[in-house]
């Protein structure tokens, strides 16, 4: 060991937290004298209702929240920086780990963004397969959102019922991509493989069985007064707030705003499918819950159409200079072997420029902004994580609610810290 090494000084995090809390308390202590002492409650980063590592610093008067400060970043892995250090295709597995409840949809959103940069449009079959991926992911994510929401309000069994359904979706994922959870299914310009024949009967079976299961969950919750009391008129997000805080996805639509990128800016040929966008009226937890349930029904509708009308043809774009050739030719032909090597080591030859592509993901608009200086590696990649944006509304809506409402609101916002912190 070199002697010049300084001893590493441990930051006194406990003391820092303490000072921070004191400042926090001091900032709002004006009117609090009459009402007595306020309780600062540190909810998370390790708490069952924070769905990961969200930390909420709650200032409470009894059980009533007077101030809430979300603190994110405990799951920060520097994905955006990582992306700058690898080729476009290499980053696909990282997108699995953003919203890890809907990896298929993340894969698609990312691939679409890069394809937009490349100016590619997928052939019909590829697009339809991606629609199937997106909608499966939507159902899967909403199921978990629903189950976790129910669990937060105490109904543990619903969680398990939705998980049972999710397992079936995982089986489908497995057939689609070869992995259940971290699918890494898309590649820039296509997919790793075409849909297997085994997929279709399984998918049909799932779609048949899914609606009755969903009805069951519906029956357990939707008209149960305990649940309704817990969610109705709780965590109301007004239209104005929803827009000004940049909410997207079911949380935005729950507030009664008809905004769905699949309708407003159709991609992947979503305009060809017959489906409706459910929106809420009051913007409370109950509306967000109902919207998710309805969206799942709509997704089933889309899935049925997509699977039924799945066109034939290639699934990848045709650009041999930028798309690695099929393995069979790599093994036998020189040019293909060279292209394979170069495309994997140097990445595709993207033009310089900037693109943003936002996809309607289960949690909201997952956007990838790519600034390219040309070549196979993004110069800068920014992820617009819907969970992160959706969480920003917490300080606005939490005050005035009770401790128990916090978990209900968190559950109804359905966020994923992997995406928020990215």
């Amino acid at each position, binding site marked *: 060991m070199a002697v010049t090494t300084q001893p590493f000084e441990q930051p006194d995090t406990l003391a820092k937290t303490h000072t921070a809390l004191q400042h926090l308390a001091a900032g709002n202590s004006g009117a609090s004298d009459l009402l007595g002492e306020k309780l600062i409650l540190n909810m998370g980063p390790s708490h069952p209702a924070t769905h990961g590592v969200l930390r909420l610093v709650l200032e409470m008067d009894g059980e009533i929240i007077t101030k809430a400060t979300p603190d994110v970043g405990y799951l920060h892995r520097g994905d955006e920086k990582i992306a700058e250090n690898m080729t476009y295709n290499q980053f696909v597995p990282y997108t699995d780990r953003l919203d890890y409840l809907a990896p298929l949809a993340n894969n698609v959103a990312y691939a679409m963004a890069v394809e937009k940069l490349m100016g590619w449009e997928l052939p019909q079959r590829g697009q339809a397969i991606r629609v199937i991926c997106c909608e499966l992911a939507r159902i899967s994510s909403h199921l978990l959102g629903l189950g976790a929401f129910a669990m937060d309000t105490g109904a543990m069994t619903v969680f398990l019922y939705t998980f049972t359904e999710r397992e079936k979706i995982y089986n489908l994922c497995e057939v689609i991509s070869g992995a259940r959870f971290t699918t890494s299914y898309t590649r820039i310009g296509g997919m790793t493989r075409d849909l297997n024949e085994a997929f279709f009967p399984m998918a049909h079976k799932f779609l048949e069985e899914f609606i009755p299961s969903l009805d069951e969950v519906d029956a357990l919750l939707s008209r149960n007064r305990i649940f309704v009391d817990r969610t109705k008129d709780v965590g109301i997000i007004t239209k104005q707030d929803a827009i000004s805080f940049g909410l997207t996805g079911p949380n935005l639509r729950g507030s009664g705003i008809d905004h769905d990128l699949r309708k407003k800016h159709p991609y992947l040929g979503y305009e060809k499918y017959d489906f409706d966008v459910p929106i809420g009226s009051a913007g409370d937890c109950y509306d967000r819950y109902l919207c998710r349930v309805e969206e799942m029904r709509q997704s089933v509708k889309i899935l049925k159409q997509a699977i039924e009308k799945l066109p034939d043809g290639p699934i990848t774009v045709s650009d041999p200079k930028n798309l690695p050739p099929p393995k069979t030719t790599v093994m036998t032909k020189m040019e293909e072997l060279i292209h394979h090597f170069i495309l994997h080591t140097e990445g595709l030859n993207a033009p310089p420029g900037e693109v943003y592509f936002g996809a309607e993901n289960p949690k909201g608009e997952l956007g990838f902004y790519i600034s390219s200086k040309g070549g196979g590696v993004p110069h800068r990649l920014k992820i617009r994580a819907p969970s992160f944006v959706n969480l920003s509304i917490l300080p606005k809506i939490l005050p005035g609610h009770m401790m128990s409402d916090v*978990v209900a609101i968190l559950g109804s916002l359905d966020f994923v810290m992997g995406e928020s912190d990215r």
Partner: protein
Amino acid sequence: MDFINDIPWLLIAASVAKTLFLIFLIVLPIVSYTVYAERRVSALIQDRLGPNRTGFPTSLLGFHKDLQLFLGGLGQPVADAVKFLLKEEFTPGHVNKFYFWLAPVLAMVPALSTLAVLPFGNYMFGQKMVVADVNVGILYVFAIASIGVYGIVLAGWSSNSKYPFLGGIRATSQMISYELSLGLSAVPVLMIIGNLNLSDAIQYQIDNGWLLLPFTDGKLTLRELLLWIPVGISFIVFTISMFAETNRLPFDLPESETELVAGYHTEYSSMKFALFFLGEYAAMIAGSSVIVVLFLGGWHLPFLPINTLESSTTPAGMALGLIHISVFFAKVIALLIFFIWVRWTLPRFRFDQLMKLGWLYLFEIALVNIFITAAILALVK
């Protein structure tokens, strides 16, 4: 020193024997297997399997395989107990040590004490199957139950931590509030029975049919038919209040794990936690027993002969006595499973909704119910 001779040694010996029998041979096994049932039933409700493997580790003794009983997993309570005993007994540095240690005891003791006045059988060995057959049995139950809150409050307070503290406060207000509707909803029953003694309550139901199922004595009079309404209401309110008193979902706010992590026992581990755990389930058993005694005829089963004090020493009487005890606990277990079943079906109340329900609805309903009962009793002789 003649007062030593005054001590009723026989009574004490019998009471001790009955207590030991009740606690160690019946209640604690039921408690541990209720925990198992909780896990197993919840699993089955949720399309899972639950603990179905823990057999007895005969492989430790050199056998090739562990002994799996027919259901599998029956060794789970034993494994749980061993785990609780062997886990590190951790006391956080910031707690108030004495009360931190006292709290689990205070949670466990009242729950078990309640059982003292519950007649869990008829006669055996020439003894009435109740530890203390006091006149004010039902009041005693309420009194002891109201002491039970101390354990939780102290746990919440002495942990010197915010989540347990909130849990403790919730528990206090919840239990005090629901004691009212609990007590009031029992009043109509007591009015009908006309006695506070729980043995007499059972005797009344043997004579007139179970309160909730008045036809069990073979006949149904108009009075019974009319009384069915207040008794039914009583039963519902009493059961709901019992859920609240025992902190079971949908009233498990003091320990709701998604909000308060684990409420008052967040900071507890190992055996101290186990005591809370056991106390909670023992309270469930006590509560179910009270319901059984008050509404479901206690140890009585229609069409089953009833043994007497005299016959209880004969083999036939003994057998009958055992059957009575079994009937009692069968009813209790059925109620416990109902408790479990409800827990895995419903969401949880919010705190203000819970208080509102208790004070605005259950309390009033119980109160009005008393008048209805009184009216019926006065009108129909």
